[in-house]
């Protein structure tokens, strides 16, 4: 009798995560990219690529753009309003980020969603996926930190002479936005392709806009053959990781229940080894993790992996959930054949 009783927890643990995430991402994409048309305004400190260049369509704005803007002030300005504004913006970014942790990347980011859609197209066309070589993984991981340092440093060097060096040209005021594929791709979804351009007015603009065009080309092909291709280089991910520890949403692992079967690692879009190998850490939100929760859905052990919000388990791995999802996949596969 009790077996047939509906349990919300059981239903959540047995859910089809792929389908849930697909629809969640679509809703988030619509709100972020088109929200402005219905008057949605989530502010300008969002920890996701809600592009500043999306004009009236955007439902909020990306903090990276605001951060670069906030830093382009003379140092004496930081004693006054500019300094307060910078701290308030950083604080608000942290508050937004703590609510969802890296879930912003896995569930909300429009650029991440676009990459997932390209992956789906590749899977439909049955083209083989690619991987970054393990020999270069360390170097690839460090690119996002280099980009983060540059995007923090260059705007400061426009308004100030740092270490006696001459001030940088104004064309570098938003260095990351210049090369971010979101600047071209997100407005394109509202019918504005005017961010695809090369600026010949100065050498700096020429170099930055050409780099932007090269990176958008790499983004489109790279995301097609490699899952979450751009997320490895994303400076937003690096910035988020700095604030990740006190976040409310967590990915916990109970190492004692892990059999090291490797299913979680194989399900991971970001090829995070620690998710399978690490049986000592509790919090497994690593620098590259997007909190997509695919690992939780792929784990066959009861309570080994769980998504935890403020101490409460919201989704955890169960044997039953694993079998249900396996059965769903099997049905889908049979249907396809």
């Amino acid at each position, binding site marked *: 009798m009790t077996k047939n009783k509906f349990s919300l927890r059981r239903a959540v643990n047995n859910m089809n995560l792929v389908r849930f995430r697909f629809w969640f991402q679509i809703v988030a994409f619509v709100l972020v990219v088109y929200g402005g048309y219905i008057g949605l305004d989530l*502010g300008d400190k969002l920890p996701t690529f809600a592009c500043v260049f999306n004009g*009236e369509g955007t439902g*909020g704005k990306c903090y990276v753009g605001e951060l670069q803007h906030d830093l382009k002030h003379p140092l004496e300005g930081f004693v006054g309003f500019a300094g307060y504004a910078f701290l308030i913006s950083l604080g*608000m970014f942290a508050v937004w980020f703590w609510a969802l942790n890296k879930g912003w990347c896995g569930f909300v980011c429009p650029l991440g969603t676009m990459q997932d859609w390209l992956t789906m197209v590749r899977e439909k066309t049955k083209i083989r996926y690619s991987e970054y070589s393990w020999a270069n993984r360390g170097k690839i991981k460090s690119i996002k930190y280099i980009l983060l340092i540059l995007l923090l440093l260059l705007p400061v060097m426009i308004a100030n002479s740092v270490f006696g060096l001459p001030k940088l040209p104004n064309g570098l005021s938003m260095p990351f936005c210049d090369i971010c594929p979101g600047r071209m791709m997100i407005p394109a979804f509202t019918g504005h*392709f005017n961010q*695809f*351009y090369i*600026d010949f007015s100065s050498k700096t603009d020429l170099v930055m806009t050409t780099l932007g065009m*090269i990176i958008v080309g*790499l983004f489109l092909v790279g995301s097609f053959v490699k899952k979450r291709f751009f997320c490895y280089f994303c400076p937003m991910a690096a910035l988020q990781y700095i604030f990740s520890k006190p976040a409310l949403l967590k990915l916990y692992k109970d190492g004692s229940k892990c059999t090291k079967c490797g299913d979680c690692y194989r399900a991971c879009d970001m090829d995070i080894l620690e998710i399978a190998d690490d049986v000592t850490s509790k919090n497994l939100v690593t620098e590259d993790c997007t909190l997509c929760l695919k690992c939780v859905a792929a784990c066959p052990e009861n309570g080994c992996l769980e998504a935890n919000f403020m101490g409460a388990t919201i989704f955890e791995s169960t044997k039953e959930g694993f079998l249900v999802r396996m059965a769903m996949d099997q049905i889908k596969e049979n249907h396809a054949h």
Partner: protein
Amino acid sequence: MRMFTFKLKIAVISMCMCVSLFAQDSLWLDESKKKSCCSGGEKAPNIKEFVIKKGTLQENKKEHDFKNAVVYVRDMDHAVSELNVTGGKIAFTPIHKGGYRLYFEQKSVQEGVLHVNLSSMRIHNKEGNISQTLLKEVRGKTNDSHYDQKPLAQLPFELVMERPIRKHHINCCLYSGDIAPFTVYYKGKVQKDVSLRVSMESGWNATIQPDDEGVLSFEIPRSTYATTEKEKKRSEKMIVEASYDVNESGVYKGEAYHGVRYVMSLPLSFGASPLEYESQVLGFATAIGVMLVFSLGLYYNRRRKRKTPKEIYFDEE
């Protein structure tokens, strides 16, 4: 012959009207230039000062008579306040960071006609007062559009600029080549029979007629063919102005009038079109070229790395 004389009269009258249109003085709001330094090492308070200019863009003088003048300020949240204009100065200390719109209104009765001179301009304030704007900064509101402003309830007549139509990538400002649309409102209703006068610093003047829906639009012309490559930030001023006559009689400050003439000006500035120094075709070509090279590279790399199955030999001995 009589018909010819009539047509000639009409032509002469319309020519005179055209000349008078361009010859007549405009009145507009302008932000006065900031003083370069501050006294005694103290930081100057964030006061914005405005002047009223009268004349043409080429030849004008500051107006010091603010008798019967009112200035309204509308902030980014559409809250309206009235400014004090005594002492021959229009000064304003903005509290919040963001866009404000100022409206100047001055009334006077001349030759039995009530003249209502209006001017409006937008300013962007970079530094707010942190103690008063804390919540706004925390909220981080982004909807602070230059355009699509609703007419101000305090003014019966208003010229409003709508969102420009543009082909380049910059959303914030006006550039040559952009199509700038305007709408004229009288008592909150769109007026479809009012023309627009445009005059530019370079000397270009035009009268724009409304379309069927009352929208007055024109393409901002390129005013110079001198090289603009190195002068990306070069900007030019223009004044757009609309006037509207109403048959209305009354008394204003003890003076009787039998008609009202509203004139509203919008001082605007525009830069050289970004399309003069950027190439969208080349942008697309670069992105597509990179995609092709990257795809082909991947394809050949995959073909090269394709492993042949290992041949297994069994030792039969």
